[in-house]
């Protein structure tokens, strides 16, 4: 009996295609649910910070089903394509934005011993490279919408890339140098003695600030600044296509928070006195805290100007990041 089931397992479950399929289902499932959780938390956190209640009706208990209801609403909406739009580009742009956001989840480790879809040797490189592709989708959306506000938003998004990409990569490079590996599980495993936020605190701050800019979250939400350019590249989108953009934004919060917690907060590594809590909970908790900070900043800060972000990035963040790399290199060689 055991031998037969073993045989079935070998034959079917262990088949590379089935495992591949299961991984895809798991990652896409995560991509669809994690943003919902972050979105709900954002609704409620912002509301309570702003002396209001937020969603209270959908699903009865504190409006827990609000985002599911929103999703149903988006599906029901008419799918409008502007007459002057470049229809093909307009249609595929949400996909160009969304697919990289899904792919990032393949390399994020959610716990020790195989809690990841793929352990790439160049995991960090893959994650950061692929998440930058969404800017192309943003430009495509802005250009094809045939709307001046969309165009301004898209160009702002592209300009923002120049500001945040370099500090993000340089801050990561210092961590990679210290860990001696590009693999995300490898970096998390290398932090078993202490979390890298201690030696790399400057890098951690740079990474968080640059991530906010990459996600177009306040105080760096210039590409979608709703009081200036309506909603940037998303102005002309309706229904499901618009929902794809929103989903991507919140999935981005989850994936970048998860990567930040792996790079700097030790991933699944526990704090000394509470080691009995399993690894996956640690990484989810850290991701949750970082996501909460992202939401908190939205409630607090006004928006910067694009040129002020550039100035900040090139005058302060990049020099600090280079100095960080230099110091890390010296320590790596000396000790």
């Amino acid at each position: 009996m055991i031998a037969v089931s073993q045989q079935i397992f070998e034959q079917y479950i262990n088949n590379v295609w089935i495992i591949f399929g299961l991984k895809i289902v798991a990652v896409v499932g995560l991509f669809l649910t994690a943003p919902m959780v972050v979105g709900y938390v954002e609704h409620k956190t912002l509301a309570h910070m702003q002396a209001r209640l937020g969603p209270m009706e959908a699903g009865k208990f504190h409006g827990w089903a609000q985002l599911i209801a929103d999703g149903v609403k988006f599906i029901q909406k008419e799918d409008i394509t502007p007459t002057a739009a470049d229809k093909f580009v307009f249609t595929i742009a949400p996909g160009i934005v969304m697919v990289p956001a899904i792919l990032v989840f393949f390399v994020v480790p959610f716990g020790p011993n195989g809690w990841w879809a793929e352990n790439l040797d160049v995991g960090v490189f893959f994650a950061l490279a692929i998440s930058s592709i969404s800017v192309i989708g943003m430009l495509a959306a802005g250009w094809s919408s045939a709307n001046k506000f969309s165009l301004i938003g898209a160009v702002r998004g592209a300009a923002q890339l120049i500001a945040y990409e370099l500090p993000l990569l340089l801050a990561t490079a210092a961590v990679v140098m210290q860990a001696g590996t590009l693999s995300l599980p490898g970096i998390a495993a290398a932090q078993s003695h202490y979390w890298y936020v201690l030696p790399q605190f400057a890098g951690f701050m740079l990474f968080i600030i640059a991530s906010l800019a990459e996600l177009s979250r306040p105080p760096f939400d210039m590409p979608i600044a709703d009081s200036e350019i309506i909603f940037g590249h998303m102005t002309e989108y309706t229904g499901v296509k618009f929902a794809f953009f929103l989903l991507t934004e919140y999935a981005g919060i989850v994936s970048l928070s998860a990567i930040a917690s792996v790079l700097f907060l030790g991933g699944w590594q526990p704090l000394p006195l509470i080691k009995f809590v399993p690894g996956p909970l640690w990484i989810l908790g850290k991701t949750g805290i970082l996501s909460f900070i992202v939401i908190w900043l939205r409630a607090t800060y006004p928006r910067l100007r694009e040129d002020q972000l550039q100035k900040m990035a090139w005058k302060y963040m990049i020099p600090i990041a280079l100095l960080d790399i230099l110091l890390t290199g010296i320590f790596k060689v000396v000790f």
Partner: protein
Amino acid sequence: MAVDVKSGILPGGPGEGVEVLVSGSADLATEEMLLNIGPQHPSTHGVLRLVIALDGEMIHSAEPVVGYMHRGFEKMAEVRDYRQIIALVNRHDWLSAFCNELGVVLAVEKLMGLDVPLRAQWIRVMMAEWNRILNHLMFLGSFGLELGAMTPMFYAFREREDIQELMEAATGARLHFTYNRIGGLKEDLPRGFMQHSAALVKKIRHRMDDYAGLLLGNEIFKQRTVGIGKLPGSVAKEFGCSGPILQASGIAEDSRKTEPYLTYDQCEFEVPIGVQGDSFDRFNVLFQRVHQSLSIIEQVHDKMPAGPIMPGKMPKNIKPPEGWIYARTENPLGECGYYLVSKGGKEPWRLKMRTPSFSNVSMLPALLPGNLLPDLIAILGSVFFVVGDVDR
């Protein structure tokens, strides 16, 4: 490939001898982009339209197009009797309803030479100041929202709710109060109003710290507003700006001080002024004006006399004598004036409004060019206006 710009001929290759048009130098041809901000736009508070010419994000020219909300109040006033006009004028600037009706009532009383009872005058001062705070809170909140800070807006509405509740207790309305009557007020204050008001003054003063913390002391807010949209005092005067805009440019003009009406001459308050007339100064002046209004309200609490609120039985159809009058009041957004011509009938022959928002918006073409598109929003939010007040 070298291009002979003078003759416009590409030398060499298969294209030789083909004439090409070379416009300008070897640079790419660029042109200005015309952008319509509004009439439907999140940050124009209604239906103001700005036609701006952009080079990249730099504004080359800006032209406000007004009139999308013209409702013909001045003409309508000619076919309404004097009681009905009170309900009419509190609608052109819906955020300062009480101050508007105060202006027209003062004009008619001046024309008729009526003596308004002292208690009615003091109540008018108090309500006008509460209305001023109500108005300023709206703009304190919305300015933050335009710069991307959401929270001040919700805080502002929390405070506005409290004030509206207070004013509703006396007037019965939350937006269009219609509390003034020619000669006095609709009715006396309800019991317990003064205690309610005194408690609210303390509460609002305490909560103003929230705004100071979220905006005035915020580094990003300062980066976005300090030095942005500087309006020199002389230019502000030329365009007839008034209220917080003029005061932020360093001119302490306030008709409560320079030409006191009601009992403002018996109240002690300061006119806050700005230093360089930028967006930050305009916001700061608005912020300080709330504190001054709170202090005036506290003084009213101490000085409120007892007595009637109407000078006696007023006739149903009020017929001021033939003549004209101009009454000006310091509205929350600036100087509001009513020029009233009476031919002795029960309706005015002509009512001309001088509204603060119209003059304040007319200065935008002088202020906007040379600024960036994101700064347009920072400037527009600090030129406090109500579109109904612009278009009338």
